[in-house]
């Protein structure tokens, strides 16, 4: 069986003849249909397309055509990415039958790299833009954590996290506006890479916040995240925010150890004890690869500016939904009401937040230029129970200064599992770097995963 194999391992199996693209696709479809559906991780199985793409990949391998590390590898995509032939629901009941007649750039690039789309995966409605306050905020129901099905897999890339962690697919594509890759990576014990804003084209992806939306890979290892990012990154005329630089992984232009690490102690203040303990052990493990010092973040109203910007852009992106009343068809009761107030954010408030954001970006770049990476827990807590409002779980830990800051400034970060906390749930280490430093972050995460084995553990499911 190929469950829990990495992209790199599956690639070796494909090339040795130990398995085939069609066999991998069938195994992924079967596991998604059973385990994936039990977890509420799946919106749509793309079986016909998957088998067609797998058969092509198989035929090409037989003919000696090799498209690279993703050739013949099955994957799932968050259901906010357009894919020809299947609905793209954005996780929201009002859009559940929506069809696009083109592939999102990310889906197209993965197809060109030989990867096989097997499923559209569950997500929080509108990627959380309506201000959800509980796991039950999507028409497909809350997604469980493979390590503990009574816990929530995180959001908004809920299904992407659960499907990879449950061994349904070796990688999935998620999106992050303000934590939506790192939250499920934390809750499910995965490696999740939030690329630099503009690294990956957003064309064909649901827009929640044009200036903050990012797409990125979720996989078992940092190396796999690099392989996927290599396939999906790059400039795209269809997305004017894409960076002009081409991205390549692996790359020889990566700084070697010793690295300079900065630890953001303030992020430990409200964290659960096990999260703090596992973080301290992670930092000790990384001392083998560099020096560590404590850093303080520039003082800005990160969470407030994030809220003003996302809410204003969300209200514009979904103005017809809100004004027309279809917002009342969303699943979470609060999501049917919260968007109204965003209709009245003055342009001067939005622009003030955007002007302040430019100053934040400069100050953060000055800070990050002194380090190879900042180290923090990915989240201050493990996954909450699947059936409670967040406020009743741990409201004191909901204020996410660092998470807001890194998304406002658009800098990359990679989350890696670093242990277990309460209820047998994963905890996670976050490695954050300067704009464009993905390969440095992957190298550091690779180093961490070379001396630890958390990423190799699998849930009993």
């Amino acid at each position: 069986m190929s469950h829990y194999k990495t992209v790199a391992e599956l690639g070796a199996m494909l090339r040795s003849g130990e398995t085939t693209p069609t066999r991998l696709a069938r195994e992924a479809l079967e596991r998604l249909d059973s385990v994936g559906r039990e977890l509420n991780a799946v919106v749509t199985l793309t079986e016909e397309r998957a088998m067609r793409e797998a058969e092509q990949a198989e035929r090409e391998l037989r003919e000696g055509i090799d498209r690279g590390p993703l050739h013949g590898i099955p994957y799932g995509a968050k259901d906010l990415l357009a894919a020809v032939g299947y609905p793209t629901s954005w996780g929201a009941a009002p859009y559940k039958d929506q069809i696009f007649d083109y592939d999102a750039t990310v889906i197209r690039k993965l197809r060109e790299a030989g990867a096989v789309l097997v499923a559209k995966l569950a997500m929080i409605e509108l990627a959380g833009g309506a201000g959800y306050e509980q796991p039950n905020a999507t028409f497909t129901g809350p997604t469980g954590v493979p390590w503990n099905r009574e816990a929530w897999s995180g959001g908004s890339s809920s299904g992407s996290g659960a499907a990879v962690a449950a061994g349904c697919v070796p990688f999935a594509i998620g999106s992050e506006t303000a934590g939506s890759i790192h939250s499920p990576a934390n809750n499910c014990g995965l490696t999740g890479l939030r690329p630099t804003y503009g690294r990956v084209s957003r064309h064909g992806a649901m827009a929640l916040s044009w200036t903050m939306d990012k797409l990125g890979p979720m996989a078992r290892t940092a190396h796999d995240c690099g392989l996927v990012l290599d396939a999906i990154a790059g400039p795209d005329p269809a997305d004017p925010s894409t960076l002009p630089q081409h991205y390549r992984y692996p790359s020889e232009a990566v700084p070697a150890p010793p690295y300079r690490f900065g630890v953001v102690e303030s992020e430990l203040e409200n964290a659960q004890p096990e999260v703090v303990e596992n973080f301290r052990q992670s930092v000790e493990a990384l001392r083998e690869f560099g020096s560590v010092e404590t850093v303080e973040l520039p003082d800005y109203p990160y969470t407030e500016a994030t809220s003003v910007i996302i809410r204003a852009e969300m209200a514009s992106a979904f103005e017809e939904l809100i004004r027309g009343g279809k917002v009342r068809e969303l699943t979470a009761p609060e999501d049917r009401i919260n968007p109204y107030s965003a209709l009245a954010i003055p342009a001067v408030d939005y622009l003030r937040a955007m002007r302040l954001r430019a100053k934040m970006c400069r100050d953060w770049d000055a800070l990050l230029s002194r380090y190879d990476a900042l180290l923090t827990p990915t989240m201050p807590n493990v996954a909450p129970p699947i059936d409670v409002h967040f406020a009743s779980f741990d409201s004191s830990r909901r204020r996410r200064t660092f998470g807001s800051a890194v998304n406002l400034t658009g800098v990359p970060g990679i989350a890696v599992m670093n242990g277990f906390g309460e209820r047998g749930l994963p905890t996670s280490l976050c490695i954050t770097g300067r704009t464009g430093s993905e390969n440095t972050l992957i190298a550091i995460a690779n180093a961490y995963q070379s001396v630890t084995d958390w990423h190799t553990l699998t849930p009993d499911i």
Partner: protein
Amino acid sequence: MKEGIRHMADPKLVDAVLAQIRASLDHEIEDEHIERVRKGIDDKLDQAERVRKYPLENGDEPFTVFRAYREES
């Protein structure tokens, strides 16, 4: 940002913003949801006030990807 005392907006301002929102909708907000919308308005006014406390110079511009457009032939 250091935690500060939460700014409570003038109820008259909240009412005015609420009236603006209601007038712009194609439907009525149900009565039992009005208090929650008021709370949302108050939160956003508070967030904007906190952002406003950070000084900006006239030359502090936002980043933008706007570009004058001409289709390549």
